């Protein structure tokens, strides 16, 4: 019998229904795997008792023939989602001890569907980063290593812990969030699937806010089908979130027909960036061939404002973040560092509570919004954002999806690029446009780099057309047939 931890969510769902194993067994296997893989530092908080209690309830429901769409499936939750009664830190010192008295809408949806919580996953502090090296709780490690090289690699970020846990088979799926690429890029680095849905598809209520007009929750899983299953549960209108869109959630799994004949996929010429590694270029080309072989037609498209997307993002996101993070002030929750006056208390608490990258972004954000600079920076960036969104609207007249690489490289060693913020920002060059335009994007593991590390391909879709995205992703996944696994971590069940 396959290790229970090797199953996909779809397989687990079937196994549970057929009573090949119980929810308790499935969860126990994962709880053990989590323990054994502590070296990865994928989890900030483990919740084994809660998991077993939830599994017990799942078994009872399944026995009554009542199970939900994710009944008994053990998953990890990025520590950006507020989980009632469970420490939630956003990987920051400033949220020390914060136990939310409420549950985020997305995780509430998951528990209602019967999912089981293994714990809270590591991430870059306040979701700011592309490497999971800015966490107060230490970096998470990519379960992949370069053969013959001992150095731990970054799992990507900000949802590093989520991608690492899923790749290491210590969770069957994980929730994550994506503001500039934080689902797709770590998925690519860890050889798993990650989808950022259309802005407004999932509720942001109860998710620690980073950049309100860009943040979106989404699943990280090992297969496209699993992502479709999870997204269906996570998504949906929430009246508590004014930016949540009242559209019904389709059965995304039903979109996985495998048939993309006649579909047009765009190849944006501006994504061929200077200095792009030849293996990424080759993989991209390979992706084109796979889709063409399945009956789809490649179309050259232009997204002329692509090169301005990163600087646009690095004005808008920090600006919104500087305001969203003003509430972390030591008054009502989290860390308080004393001061002789109110302002001193604020300055000490925030100076010590926030890590360097967060402080950097808050300062940039404060600067670009400040008097005299608002027009030149923030307003300008919002105009450029309109241009970027228009690029996509134009492009989608000529094609139904867009194919690009997900990241400009494979995972790199922890510590590399640490001194140069901009070098770190460039990790998001292929993903950031999608957040700016509010569109859905998915990363599918497509191949291995020369040094044996996963490389992903990204598909970008029209707003609220996740179905087409899943359909094409499914075809890509079959064609790529990415069966490589990271070296076993600890022992599975």
């Amino acid at each position: 019998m396959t290790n229970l931890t090797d199953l996909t969510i779809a397989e687990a769902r079937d196994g549970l229904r057929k009573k090949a194993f119980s929810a308790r067994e499935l969860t126990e296997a994962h709880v053990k795997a989590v323990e054994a893989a502590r070296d990865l530092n994928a989890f900030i908080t483990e919740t084994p008792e809660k998991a077993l209690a939830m599994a017990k309830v799942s078994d009872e429901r399944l026995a009554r023939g009542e199970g939900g769409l994710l009944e008994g499936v053990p998953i990890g939750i990025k520590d950006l989602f507020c989980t009632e009664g469970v420490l939630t830190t956003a990987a920051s010192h400033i949220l020390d001890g914060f136990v939310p008295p409420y549950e985020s809408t997305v995780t509430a949806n998951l528990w209602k569907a019967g999912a089981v919580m293994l714990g809270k996953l590591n991430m870059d502090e306040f979701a700011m980063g592309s490497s999971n090296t800015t966490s107060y709780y230490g970096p998470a490690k990519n379960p992949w290593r370069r053969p013959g090289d001992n150095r731990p690699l970054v799992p990507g970020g900000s949802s590093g812990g989520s991608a690492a846990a899923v790749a290491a088979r210590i969770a069957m799926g994980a929730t994550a969030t994506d503001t500039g690429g934080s689902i797709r890029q770590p998925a690519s680095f860890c050889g798993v699937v990650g989808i950022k849905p259309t802005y407004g598809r999932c509720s942001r209520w109860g998710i620690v806010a980073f950049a309100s007009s860009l943040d979106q929750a989404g699943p990280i899983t090992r297969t496209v089908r699993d992502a479709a299953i999870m997204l269906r549960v996570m998504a949906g209108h929430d009246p508590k979130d004014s930016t949540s869109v009242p559209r019904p959630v389709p059965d995304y799994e039903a979109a996985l027909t495998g048939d993309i004949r006649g579909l047009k996929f765009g190849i944006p010429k501006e994504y061929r960036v200077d200095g792009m590694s030849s293996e990424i270029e080759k993989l991209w080309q390979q992706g084109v061939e796979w889709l063409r072989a399945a009956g789809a037609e490649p179309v050259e498209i232009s997204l002329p404002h692509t090169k301005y997307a990163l600087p646009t993002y690095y004005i808008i996101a920090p600006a919104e973040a500087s305001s969203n993070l003003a509430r972390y002030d030591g008054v009502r929750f989290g860390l308080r560092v004393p001061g002789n006056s109110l302002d001193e208390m604020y300055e000490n608490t925030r100076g010590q509570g926030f890590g360097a990258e967060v402080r950097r972004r808050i300062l940039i954000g404060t600067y670009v919004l400040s008097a005299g600079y608002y027009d030149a920076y923030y307003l300008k960036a919002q105009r450029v954002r309109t241009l970027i969104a228009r690029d996509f609207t134009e492009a989608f007249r000529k094609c139904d999806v867009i194919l690009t690489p997900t990241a400009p490289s494979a995972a790199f060693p922890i510590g590399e690029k640490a001194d140069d913020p901009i070098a770190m920002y460039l990790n998001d060059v292929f993903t950031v446009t999608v957040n700016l335009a509010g569109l859905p994007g998915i990363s599918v593991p497509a191949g291995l780099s020369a040094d044996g590390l996963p490389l992903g391909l990204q598909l970008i879709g029209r707003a609220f057309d996740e179905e087409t995205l899943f359909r094409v992703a499914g075809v890509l996944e079959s064609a790529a047939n990415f069966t490589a696994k990271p070296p076993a971590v600890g022992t599975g069940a």
Partner: protein
Amino acid sequence: MSLDKATVARIATLARIKLADGDLDRMTGELQSILNWVEQLNELDTAHVEPMTSAVEVVLPMREDVVTDGGYADKILANATDPVMEPEGGFFTVPKVVE
């Protein structure tokens, strides 16, 4: 746009973040390079482009004027440092503000 230490110090005060002295130097340098990098947006003529107001195309939803929330002071104060609980409700406390 050129950034000097005094400006960074002023921004840090606006943001209520205390920067240690060594930090101020480094931060000024880092912020300066980021700002230099984002300058490239000026290559674009956006005079006739509307700023993006939202990533979604819906109008602002409104809710009914009904009391549906509040009434749980204990939960509101549960995570606070140094709250003062009263027979009913309670207060957050902060270092005294002199007005």
